C-alpha cells in the first residue's frame, strides 16, 4: 500500500512539475529571437560569424544543400538591400527573416530561418531566389514587403494555431495536381507573389487567365505541380495571422500542354523536370488565406529535403 501511495505521489509531483514547465515563459521570447536574427543579418554582411551565439551542433543549408557557415551567401560579397521583416515564433524557437539581399551588388529575394535553442543558433536554413535562373523573378526595385505580414489581426478575426496550419496545408493540397478542387479557405481578394512577381494580378500569364488566388486554383492553372512535399510550418503566429511554410514542389513535366477548367490551352513554363524549393509567408484573417508571398528556388527535380522527417 505504501508503495502504491509513493508511486501516486511521485506521479502527481511529476505532473505538477510538467504543468509548471509548460506555464513558464519560453527560453527565448519574441524579442530575444528577433535580436538573434538581427545580429545574424548584421554579421553576415561583415562575414564575421565568430560573435554569433552558436549551439554545439549547427546545421546550415542554402537552397537545400548542407554546407559550412561562411560558404554560400556568406562568401559572395553579401549585403542586405532592405530591412526586411522578422517573424518569430517563441513556441517553436524559430525566427524567419524575409527580405532582399545582394551578392556582389546583384539582388536576391531571401528567406532565412533560424532555430534557437537555449538562446543559441542550432539551425540555419536559407533560400535565395536569384536573378537569371529559370524560376520567376521580378526586379527588386518594384518590390515592397507587404505590411500585412507584421500587422496584428483583430482578436475576433484570429485563427487558432492548428487551424492556421491546416489552412496552409490545404493550400498545398489545392495546388498539388491542381484540378479545381479547393481544400482550404481563400479570401476572394487574396494575392500571391513569388520572387517579387505578383502572379495573381497583372501581366503574369496566370493573371491574364484569371485574377486572384482562389480563382486561379479553381481554374486548375497550376496542374503541373505533381507533388508538394517536405512541408513544414516552423513559424505560426496567431496575433499576426502569419504562417511561414517550407516546401518542395515537384514538376515531373510528363506533359507540356494542358487545359484550364474553362478549356483554355496552357503550357508548362519549363519543359523539363524541375523542383521549386519555397519559403512562403501566408496571411490568414477570419479563417481565410488573404495573402501569400515568398521565395522560390529552381532546384534539380526531386531533390531530397535535408530537413523534413
Amino acid at each position, binding site marked *: 500500500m505504501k508503495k502504491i501511495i509513493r508511486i501516486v505521489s511521485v506521479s502527481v509531483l511529476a505532473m505538477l512539475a510538467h504543468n509548471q514547465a509548460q506555464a513558464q515563459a519560453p527560453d527565448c521570447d519574441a524579442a530575444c529571437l528577433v535580436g538573434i536574427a538581427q545580429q545574424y543579418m548584421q554579421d553576415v554582411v561583415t562575414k564575421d560569424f565568430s560573435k554569433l551565439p552558436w549551439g554545439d551542433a549547427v*546545421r546550415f543549408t*542554402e*537552397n*537545400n*544543400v*548542407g*554546407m*559550412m557557415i561562411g*560558404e*554560400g*551567401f556568406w*562568401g*559572395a*560579397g553579401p549585403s542586405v538591400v532592405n530591412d526586411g521583416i522578422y517573424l518569430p515564433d517563441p513556441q517553436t524557437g524559430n525566427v524567419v527573416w524575409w527580405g532582399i539581399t545582394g*551578392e*556582389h*551588388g*546583384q539582388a*536576391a529575394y531571401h528567406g532565412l530561418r533560424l532555430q534557437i535553442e537555449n538562446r543559441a543558433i542550432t539551425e540555419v536554413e536559407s533560400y*535565395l531566389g*536569384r536573378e*537569371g*535562373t*529559370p524560376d520567376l523573378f521580378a526586379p527588386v526595385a518594384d518590390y515592397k514587403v507587404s505590411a500585412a505580414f507584421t500587422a496584428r489581426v483583430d482578436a475576433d478575426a484570429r485563427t487558432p494555431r492548428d487551424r492556421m496550419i491546416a489552412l496552409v496545408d490545404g493550400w498545398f493540397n489545392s495546388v498539388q495536381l491542381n484540378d479545381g478542387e479547393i481544400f482550404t479557405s481563400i479570401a476572394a481578394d487574396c494575392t500571391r507573389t513569388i520572387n517579387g512577381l505578383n502572379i495573381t494580378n497583372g501581366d503574369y500569364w496566370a493573371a491574364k487567365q484569371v485574377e486572384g488566388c482562389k480563382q486561379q486554383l479553381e481554374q486548375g492553372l497550376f496542374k503541373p505541380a505533381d507533388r508538394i512535399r517536405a512541408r513544414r510550418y516552423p513559424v505560426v503566429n496567431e496575433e499576426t495571422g502569419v504562417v511561414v511554410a517550407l516546401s518542395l514542389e515537384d514538376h*515531373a*513535366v*510528363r506533359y*507540356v500542354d494542358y487545359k484550364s477548367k474553362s478549356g483554355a490551352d496552357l503550357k508548362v513554363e*519549363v*519543359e*523539363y*523536370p524541375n523542383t521549386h524549393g519555397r519559403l512562403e509567408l501566408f496571411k490568414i484573417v477570419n479563417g481565410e488565406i488573404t495573402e501569400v508571398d515568398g521565395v522560390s*528556388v529552381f*532546384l*534539380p*527535380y*526531386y*531533390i*531530397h529535403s*535535408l530537413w523534413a522527417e
Partner: protein
Amino acid sequence: MQNKYLAAGIFVLCGLSAVANAQAPGEPSAVIKVECDYDCLLGYASNYIEALADRDFSRARLAPDVIFSENNVVMPVGNDGLWGTISGVHEGEMMVADEQTGNAAWFGIVEEHGNPAYLALRIKVEDSLITEIETVVNRLPDMPKPFGDPSTVTHDPVWSDILPEEQRRSRARLVAVADGYFNTVELNDGDVFTQFDDDCGRLENGMLTTSGNSGISGGGGNGNAATIASGCVAQFKLGIYRINKRIRDRRYPLIDEKRGVVVASGFFDHANMFDRYTLTDGREMRTVLKWPNSISLLEAFKIRNGRIWRIEAVFTYVPYFMPSPFAVPNIDFQTR
C-alpha cells in the same frame, strides 16, 4: 575446457579473416573475372538507352535495388526525370566501358517533348544486372552555359580506337593524368599539373570549347572559352577558369587502358567570393554569375602517350555544394 574451445574458435576466425583480406586493398579478389566484356557492357548501355527511349524500364535489365540518379538526385527509375519526358534519342553517341569495374558510359543527345538535351550516362553492371545509373542531363533554358547546336555535333571516332601498346598507360597513371586536369582547373592560376597532347580538343555540352582541332565538331555560341584562348593548355596558362574554388567529389569509375579512356565524375564549385579576376596576361575578367553555384559533370578523357588528347563533358548547374549520392551515400548534413 570451454576457454580452450573459445580460443580455438577465435584462432580459426582470425585465420579466416586474414585469408579473406589476402588480396590487393579494395579489390574483391586477387583475380578480377571479366563477366561482361567491353562489347557486352556497351550492349547494356545501348539497351538501357533503347529502354529509356521507349519508356519501358522493364527491358533495361535492372537489379531490384538499382540506384538511379539524375543530376545527383536519387529517384525511382522508370517514370521520373528523363524517364517521364524523353521523346527521342539522336544517333551518333559516344560509348566507352571498363571491363574491370563493370562500368559503361554513353554520351549523346536526347529529346524531351521535342527539345534537345545533352545526356551523359554511367551504368554499373554486376551479376548481369545494372546496379547503378548515374546521369547528368544538360537542358535549356538554364543559366548561361555551353549548349552546342545539336545538329552540328559529332563525336570523334578515336574514342573507340584501341591505342598501340606504346601509347597506353597504366590505370593509375591514367587517373593521375585526369586528376591533374582537375587540379589544374581548380583555382586555375596558370600552373598546369597534367600533360596535354598538342592536338588536345574539348567538347563541352556539344560545344567545341578549344577550337582548331581536327576530328571534333560542335556548335559555337555564347560562353565559349575558345573565344578567349584557343587550345587546352593555352586556356589554363591564361587562368581563365580561376573561379573554380574546388573540383569536388572526384571519382573515376571507368578506366580503359587499351583505349586510354577515363570517365570521371565531380563538381566544379563556383563560390563566387570574388566577381572579377585577372588573367595571367593582365586582362580583367568578370564572373557571369554573381552568386554561388556548382556544376555537376560526367567527363571523359582520351589519353595517349600519357597526354590528354580528347575531352568530352556533359555538365549542368546544380545548387552550390550539392553532394553526389555516389560520392557521399546516405547524405545528411556532412559538409566534409
